[in-house]
Each structure stands twice: as structure tokens, then as C-alpha cells.
């Protein structure tokens, strides 16, 4: 089983690495959207600091969601998905490898970029580490939950809108707590409780999500 895990992880990382546009696009989207806020709103530091947590989190959330639309598409079109579903391996293993690879090359760069954008948005320097931790805890949840939607819509030609409709309601708790943590830190209040909630949501997503994704793929292959 560990051989399969290693082979699957290596394959997924190679696939994303050889098509770097898929990897760069979410990060580019994230940076561009957040950079447009000072231009569109006003460059006043007080105002920017006020909207920064929400703006950064909304941009991160949409960046992850847009990157997920094609998560399984090429595997489905090439027939690789059928190969996975008919193999003797429990599909959760390759699915989890895919999700991990996807997060490492899209979610993690977002988390690393977030403090820089926070600084640009005039967030106090003391808050930047909280911002990064919140994005670090939140993006894996977004990836896993979004992948459930991507798995269910992979057979449809235009799944993009349907994916958003399916997934966005489930993203709201992550958005509320993610942006909330940063705002709480801005007010100088303790953030441990809210970070723990984000962590709990992540634990739930990690434990049940890959199974749901694997089942979703099986349903999509069914007809």
C-alpha cells in the first residue's frame, strides 16, 4: 500500500510540475485580486486594514475553487480515472495523494504569499503570522471540500458553475472563521479558540473528505 501511495504522490506532483500554468494560475489570481483592492477602494491605510482580512480570504477561497475545476478532468478524459477505479487499490489512496499534491503546489503557495499581501494591505506586522496560520489551516479544507464537488461534476461538460453552487455554501464556515481569526488578532484578542475551530474543521475534512471524493468519482464514472 505504501508503494502505491508513493507512486501516486510522485505521479501527481510530476503532472502538476509539467503543466506549471495550473500551479501558477491560482497564485496569480490571488495576488492580482488582492492588489486591485487598494486601487478600487482607496489607499487609506485605516480603510485597507479594515477590509484586508475579508479581501484576502475571499481571494484565497476563489483561487482554490477555480483551481479545482480541472482537478479530475484530464484523468477522466484520458481514461486514467477508469484505470484507478478498476484497480485493486482502495481509491482513497490515489485520491488522497492527488489532494495532497494539489494542496502542496497551490494551497501552500497561497499561504506563503498571504503575509506579503497582508503587509501590502496595511495589516499590522504582529497580525501577519496569524493570517498565515489561518490560511495554512483553511486552504486544505477548501481543497478537500472543493474536490468533492469536482468529483461529482467531472462527467459534465460544463461543471464550473455547478461546482461553485455545490461548494460555496460549504466554504462559508472556513471563510467566517478564517477572516474572523485575523480580525480578532487585529483587535488584540486571543486567537487560539478560533484557530482551534479552523483546525477542527480541517480534521473533519481530512478524515471524511477523501472517502467522499472517491465515492463521488465512482458515481461520476457510473454513467
Amino acid at each position, binding site marked *: 500500500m505504501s*508503494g*502505491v501511495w508513493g*507512486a*501516486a504522490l510522485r*505521479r501527481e506532483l*510530476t*503532472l502538476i510540475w*509539467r*503543466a506549471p500554468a495550473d500551479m501558477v494560475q491560482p497564485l496569480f489570481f490571488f495576488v492580482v485580486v488582492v492588489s486591485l483592492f487598494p486601487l478600487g477602494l482607496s489607499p487609506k491605510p485605516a480603510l485597507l486594514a479594515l477590509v484586508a482580512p475579508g479581501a484576502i480570504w475571499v481571494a484565497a477561497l476563489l483561487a482554490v475553487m477555480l483551481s479545482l475545476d480541472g482537478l479530475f478532468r*484530464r*484523468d477522466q*478524459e*484520458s*481514461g*486514467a480515472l*477508469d*484505470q*484507478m*477505479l*478498476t*484497480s*485493486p*487499490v482502495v481509491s482513497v489512496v*490515489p485520491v488522497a495523494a492527488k489532494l495532497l499534491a494539489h494542496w502542496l503546489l497551490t494551497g501552500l503557495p497561497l499561504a506563503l504569499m498571504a503575509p506579503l499581501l497582508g503587509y501590502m494591505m496595511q495589516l499590522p506586522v504582529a497580525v501577519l503570522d496569524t493570517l498565515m496560520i489561518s490560511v495554512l489551516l483553511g486552504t486544505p479544507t477548501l481543497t478537500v471540500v472543493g474536490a468533492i464537488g469536482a468529483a461529482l461534476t467531472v462527467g459534465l461538460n460544463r461543471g464550473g458553475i455547478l461546482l461553485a453552487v455545490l461548494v460555496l455554501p460549504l466554504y462559508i464556515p472556513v471563510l467566517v472563521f478564517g477572516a474572523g481569526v485575523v480580525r480578532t488578532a487585529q483587535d488584540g484578542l486571543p486567537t487560539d479558540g478560533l484557530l482551534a475551530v479552523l483546525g477542527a474543521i480541517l480534521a473533519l475534512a481530512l478524515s471524511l473528505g477523501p472517502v467522499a471524493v472517491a465515492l463521488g468519482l465512482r458515481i461520476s*464514472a*457510473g*454513467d
Partner: protein
Amino acid sequence: MIITAPRLTVRRLSCERDDRMLFRDLSFSAGDGEIWQITGANGAGKTTLLRILVGLHGFYDGEVLWHQPLAPSLLYLGHQPGVREELSARENLRYSQALCGQGGDPDAALEAVGLYGFEDVPAGRLSAGQKRRIALARLWLDHKPVWVLDEPFTAIDQDGVARLDARLREAAAAGTLVLYTSHHQVGENARRLHLGAAGARP
């Protein structure tokens, strides 16, 4: 001919798609060492039948019974070859091997399908026939007792067809159950299953 217990039994299998009956009351049993050729016009349901047999398609009436666990013994090549264009021939084959627990030397298998020298070329730069050969290379790896092949002869040149034909007969002689769709007949003893408008008849 040795009579063996059947590996696969299909009873009264019917499948409807888009309000159209693809096949109705299909019954047959297939045993080890047999070659089954599934024929029929375009849209007759050949691919759907194979997908039902390997457990990918769940909307049907009737019964499909594998007498031994299917997943560890199955080698399934679908309508799409399952080859990712970003990966090289060897990487694609290695991953299939890891996924399906199929041992064997990937380079020797690629050589057997005529891809010697193309092992490290990304599959996206190969032709359609060569891509299919990457998938077909799995037939030259370690033994799997059940082969389900959807149009294996498509996009393969004359020489390749002859080699594949020989390989299918060799595998059947060694006890593999081969089910495939194609208009190419393999050997004299291949059984034919024709899917048609008048209903399927073995």
C-alpha cells in the same frame, strides 16, 4: 478441450440508455482460457457492456457474477487508453503497475510493443497508435487472469495487430480469459457475442 468451472456468469443482463434498449436478456458464462469477441454496430453498447462487467457502470438489470474476486485479477483497458500526455511512456506504465500490483519489466514490455527508444518521450508527443501501445504494453507484463479490452486494435498498424493477435492467443492458451470488443477476429476458437437491434445473442 479442458472443461473448467466458469469464471464469469452473466444472467439476463439488460441495459437501457437514453430511453433506448442497448441489449436485453443477455446470458452467457465464460471460463479461463477462452477468448470472447464482442461485436456490434456503433452504439450497440459494446463499451457499456464491458464497463458493466468490470464494475464501472452500475445501471443495469440482471446479474453479473465473477466467481473469483475480480479486482486483483483484472487487466482492463478502456476505450481511452488511460495514458497521461504529460508523463513519459515508462512513467505511465510504472504507475499502472503500482496501481494494479502488476510486476514485470516495463522496458521489456515497451520494447515488445515496439516503443523501444520512446520510453522517456512524453506521451503527448507520440501518435495515437503509440499512445495505445503504451497501454497495451501492460499485456506483456506479469500475468493477470482476466483481460477486458475495449477496442485494443484501434489505431494499431498491421504489424502491431499481428503481434497483439498472437499475444491474445498465447495468453488464452496460458489460461487467461480474454473479453474484447473489435471487428478483428482472434483465432478460430474465439466465441462471438453479437449485440444488435434484434437483441443480443451469443
